[in-house]
């Protein structure tokens, strides 16, 4: 192949990388953010220094989310850990007209119906918060310690399926990370491949 053709080929192969959100690394400070919850209240991450914070990405129509909600697994986690002082934010980054997009009223009704107990549900239809954390799937879990450091980034547990039976025999990464961190130990599994449907950002 002659030089011109090769350099044209090279030029077409080397693309500009898309603008990247601030990279989120376990062990580094978690990016601060402000977001609005379903009651119109503004929440800011830095307000919660001194507490553990869990971010749970959510899409009620996704079969993986349904697995954890219809079984009561997610609600049980929320209840257990908010009871121990953890701040739990459910985040919805679905863009308008995409799967999982909901109005505040609809989401509040869902939370009541599902008997969920997050500290708040953050609505992120522009995907700003999702892209800030590079949230990939629903569910996708991020855990921030009282010093503001990200200590977990990944899946809710180690069984990446939609089967309800897998919940009982799965190792739950969220509970493991919070237990270890609260006991002053290092988090054994600090990252895992998050599993679920892709977050429905705007196209």
């Amino acid at each position, binding site marked *: *192949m002659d030089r011109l053709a*090769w350099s044209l*080929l*090279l030029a077409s*192969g*080397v*693309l500009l*990388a*898309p603008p990247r959100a601030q*990279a*989120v*690394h*376990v*062990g580094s400070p978690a990016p601060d953010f402000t977001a609005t919850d379903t009651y119109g209240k503004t929440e800011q991450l830095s307000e919660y220094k001194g507490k553990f914070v869990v971010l749970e990405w959510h899409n009620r*129509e*996704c*079969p993986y989310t349904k697995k954890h909600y219809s079984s009561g697994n997610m609600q049980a986690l929320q209840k257990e850990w908010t009871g121990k002082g953890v701040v739990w934010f459910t985040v919805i980054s679905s863009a308008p007209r*995409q*799967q999982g997009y909901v109005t505040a009223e609809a989401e509040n009704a869902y939370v009541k119906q599902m008997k969920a107990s997050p500290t708040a549900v953050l609505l992120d239809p522009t995907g700003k918060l999702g*892209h800030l954390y*590079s949230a*990939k*799937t629903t569910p996708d879990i991020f855990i921030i310690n009282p010093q503001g450091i990200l200590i977990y*980034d*990944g899946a809710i547990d180690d069984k*990446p*399926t*939609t*089967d309800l039976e897998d919940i009982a025999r799965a190792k739950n990464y969220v509970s493991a990370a919070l237990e270890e961190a609260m006991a002053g130990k290092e988090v054994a599994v*600090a*990252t*895992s*491949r998050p*599993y*679920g*449907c*892709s*977050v*429905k*950002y705007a*196209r």
Partner: protein
Amino acid sequence: MLARPLQGRLSPFLLPRGRCPRLPHVSASRIVYCLPHRAESTHRKIMTLCTNHNTRSATRAIADLVEVSRRNNAALKRMLRRAYATPLVLLSLASGARDGTSPVSSLHAKTELIAEKDSIQPGQNSWLGLHFELESGWHIYWINPGDSGEPPRVQWLLPTGFRAGSIQWPAPQRIEDHSLVDYGYEGEALLMVPVQAPGSLAGTEPVKFEATVKWLVCREICIPERADLALSLPVQRKGARKQSHWQELFTRTRARLPKQVPNDWRVTALSEKDRFVLNIETGSLEPQATFFPLEPNQIENASPQELGRLARGVRLKLRKSDQLLRPLSRLKGVVELGPGRVYLIDVPVLASNS
């Protein structure tokens, strides 16, 4: 199929395969009979109705057509019974299959258990395959699904003494999804599995293989689906076995299975601050290359792979994943250099000198 052609009253046509995904009872395994001069217009009517997703009138109209065919099928059966009295012929007409199986239709896929050869031989390996035909725009996933998704899983129910190996994954495609990148298959996919027959296989009865397959099929949304598949094959004790009519699909798929890298190639991987540099020296200039990682959380799937020039090969720069916490000791993946040129990469990762 029949000793003499079906004259006069009724003529069969096969319903379009997989084109009516929202009306799963309308499947290709059903042969619709109607008056010959109506066959063409009926076919066109069904095609039009199929594209009117979910309208109640469409559903009703198709149900009416199916009912007419059922009545005509019954009339045909009566006619055949009088003329031939061969239950075997009736069975093949009704099920549309010769080997006791028919494809299973789910909302967005048609799945079938198929075989490369038309029989089993004691002590010999046979290639079976999970054949997926996907609705346009929908995809299933590779062994590493990428940023989201879940690969198909299979649970076998095999006759005594038989052993099934693992799925052989052909090279996938990159599938972009909401600024994330997945690896999977669109259109049609064959997941081949080797099955070993015991040398001690006795008897002359056909052997039945059963597989429960679960998969996730996605377009903008994802749907978990499953199918219980079965395939019966006769036993042939001596002589070379004949190929089944699926041979061509097996051959095509085999060309996309990753091969071992030839001995005279040189493949190295270097770790730089933010990325891996993969050098593949094949002996001649390679104009294209795509890398598919076998393990998750190592490279950033959504980042474009930077192609670089090597006099005798190609260089790929792969951005590291944000989730990669510890240095990587080996880089494992599949690289596609062109049609039918798919290779398995498994190399140690060295620190870069630069």
